[in-house]
């Protein structure tokens, strides 16, 4: 399919014509990023293979996958660094590659940040001259939160401080689309929280869309609206995080007598995972929390503790439904 034909087909769909606004449900927001049959090969190696997805505006999208899954390649395609081998990558309807009109709204924080100049003062001047939406007040606020001196030599900073400097510049440029590869890599817990808070504020106040690629599911689970799982260059699924969690429950229970998974199933629970350690049983079931409590209370447990679900557990469930070997995917 030629580029022109792709554009015509996408135009005929005319999905989500409305302007992006965070008051709208995510499904109804404008698609900021659209990957259409996107493929990228490096010689004979397939990094991405016919990926189709749309990422809504004013949201935080987590892209997860194991090493070599294609996360960084996807981000580089979204940033316009790579030209797609096949298919297209659109930002608000425009091809990204070699297109400054699209790229002036996009800032990419790579896994290895690069600084053209040796201090933040000069780097901020560089960004200010390139990005029209640069916010000097926000920049001043950020250098107070992330304690890096404007005149401090950047090449002498640690890995975490490097990352902080790159994030200061990226956020202060006020991009409409922020792309981050391993955003939390090297940051200490306090700075991670600071970063999450700032990003959430920018999304809420400025309608910024954030796309984060990470191997660490736990980093993303309390933070993202949507998650997508890449594996061997293919996008296995994209789902809203709350929807993923909906209908799944996890509990720790203990009974006077030994109880088997079969007994719980016959009581009406849809057991996805069952593990017993002594008298303590941990279950993952496809029931709502209320259903779980009602059924288990009827069995007079000694202990019933409903636990929060981790993103990893949700993924294990979702992927096992799709018959994937989970340990391989999330290694």
């Amino acid at each position, binding site marked *: 399919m030629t*580029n*022109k034909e792709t*554009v015509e087909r*996408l*135009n005929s769909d*005319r*999905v*989500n*014509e409305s302007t992006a606004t965070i008051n709208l449900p995510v499904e109804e927001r*404008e*698609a900021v990023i*659209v990957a259409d049959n996107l493929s990228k090969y*490096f*010689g*004979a190696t397939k990094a991405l293979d016919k990926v189709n997805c749309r990422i809504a505006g004013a949201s935080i999208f987590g892209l997860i996958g194991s090493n070599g899954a294609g996360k960084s390649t996807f981000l*580089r395609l979204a*940033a*316009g*660094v*790579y*030209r797609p081998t096949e298919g297209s990558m*659109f930002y*608000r*309807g*425009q*091809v990204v*590659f*070699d*297109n*400054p*009109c*699209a*790229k*002036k709204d*996009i*800032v*990419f924080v*790579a896994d*290895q*940040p*690069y600084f*053209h100049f040796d201090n933040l003062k000069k780097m901020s001047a*560089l960004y200010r*001259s*390139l*990005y*029209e939406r640069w916010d000097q007040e926000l920049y001043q606020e950020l250098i107070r939160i992330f304690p890096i001196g404007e005149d401090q030599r950047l090449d002498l900073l640690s890995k975490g401080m490097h990352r902080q400097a790159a994030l200061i510049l990226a956020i202060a440029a006020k991009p409409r689309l922020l*792309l981050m590869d391993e955003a939390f890599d090297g940051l200490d817990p306090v700075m991670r929280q600071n970063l999450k808070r700032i990003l959430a504020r920018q999304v809420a106040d400025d309608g910024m869309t954030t796309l984060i690629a990470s191997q660490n599911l736990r980093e993303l689970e309390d933070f993202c609206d949507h998650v997508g799982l890449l594996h061997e260059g293919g996008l296995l699924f994209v789902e809203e995080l709350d929807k993923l969690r909906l209908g799944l429950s996890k509990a720790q229970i203990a009974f006077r007598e030994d109880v088997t998974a079969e007994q719980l199933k016959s009581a009406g629970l849809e057991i996805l995972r069952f593990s017993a350690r002594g008298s303590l049983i941990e279950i993952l079931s496809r029931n709502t929390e209320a259903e779980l409590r009602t059924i288990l209370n009827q069995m007079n447990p000694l202990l019933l503790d409903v636990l929060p679900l981790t993103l990893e557990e949700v993924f294990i469930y979702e992927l096992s439904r799709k018959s994937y070997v989970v340990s391989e995917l999330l290694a």
Partner: protein
Amino acid sequence: MTFQIQTDRGKGGTLRRKSGLWWIFGRQLADLRSLIAIFMFLFLLVMPIAMLILGRDIFTELANRHNVPYHEADGMTVVYYLGIPLRFNRAFFPFHLIVVTLSSVAVLVMGGSLFRPLYRRETVDFEWSLPLTKSQWFLGRALALVVGLSLVYLVNIIATSGIVYVWGLKEILGGYLLVYLKTYLSAIAFTGFSLVFFSLVGRLFDAIVLNIMIHLASPLMLLIMSNPYYIGDIRKQSSLHKLVWLFAPAFDTYREIAMDRNFLYYVILIVFWFVFGWFCAMKRPAEWGGRKSGSMRWFRSIQTFFSVAGGIIAGNLFYAFDFTSFQLHQTKLLRPAFIIGAILGAFLGQLISSAITGKTLQRVPSERTAKRRLHPVLYEWLWSLLGVVILYAVELVSQVI
């Protein structure tokens, strides 16, 4: 939202504060200022400062030393321009070789400094994600390189001309400026040639080494093919020779002192290399950064050149030691010594260029190479045989022309 085909490539209005091209040019020129200062000093050292150290009398003697019938016979002395005899080579000759060498070094060093970011992944990520086009990056860099070199040449000629004028050698000044301008234009043509390599390769090392290798191979081929007494011989020029000289613009610059070329020649050469360099830059994908040039597909097409050069050099070397060939009056191309030398030389040329550019000669156990039944070394043999075939064709054509 309406999807559209990209039509605006950022020209005009994309960046309200400053045009992308001028932004890049300004940045690159600022990054280059230290190197510009260094080369400015070196140029001043080898021309005006050297003149002052030598003094008027020694300089004049050096200049006149070459104004002898021997050189005139080889086309190296007086050239008439608009009916006026220009004895520019007399004045410029003491400095010509060193200025040309310094120009070539300046182009490679300053160009290497400007294009170095293309060869590292983190800098490519940074630069190519900025709201600027590939075209702007290339043109900004090329412009900065040309302006940097021009500044060096300009300051140098102002100082040198001042000294020549003060010394009362006004009659040679016009000719002096003319050959200086031609040398400058030739250096700009070499800049364009180098831009092609800077845009094509994956490593800075490859850009410089390949450039030098081609510059070594081309004149050697010419030297052997035409058997002149020296490279500057302009009387035995054939179309084929002229064509080969195009692939050694830095060496060609050494001949400026003796060439009476039309300015159109320089314009065509400069435009050709810059447009070709721009074309290569546009085709260059981001993922080439850090890759060994030997593994790139385009390298195969120029690698035959090294086979041909190796074949010509070794073939002629072997032939020179075959003393019976002179008695038999047999054509060189049919002599066993030449054939053996050509084949061995072609293979050696192929192997050396492969080793330098990091082309692997081992079987790589991947899905792709498993389909290739030939062993890489055998593959090299076949390519070098192609080089021998081209060599014979070139030799035959050169004999016919």
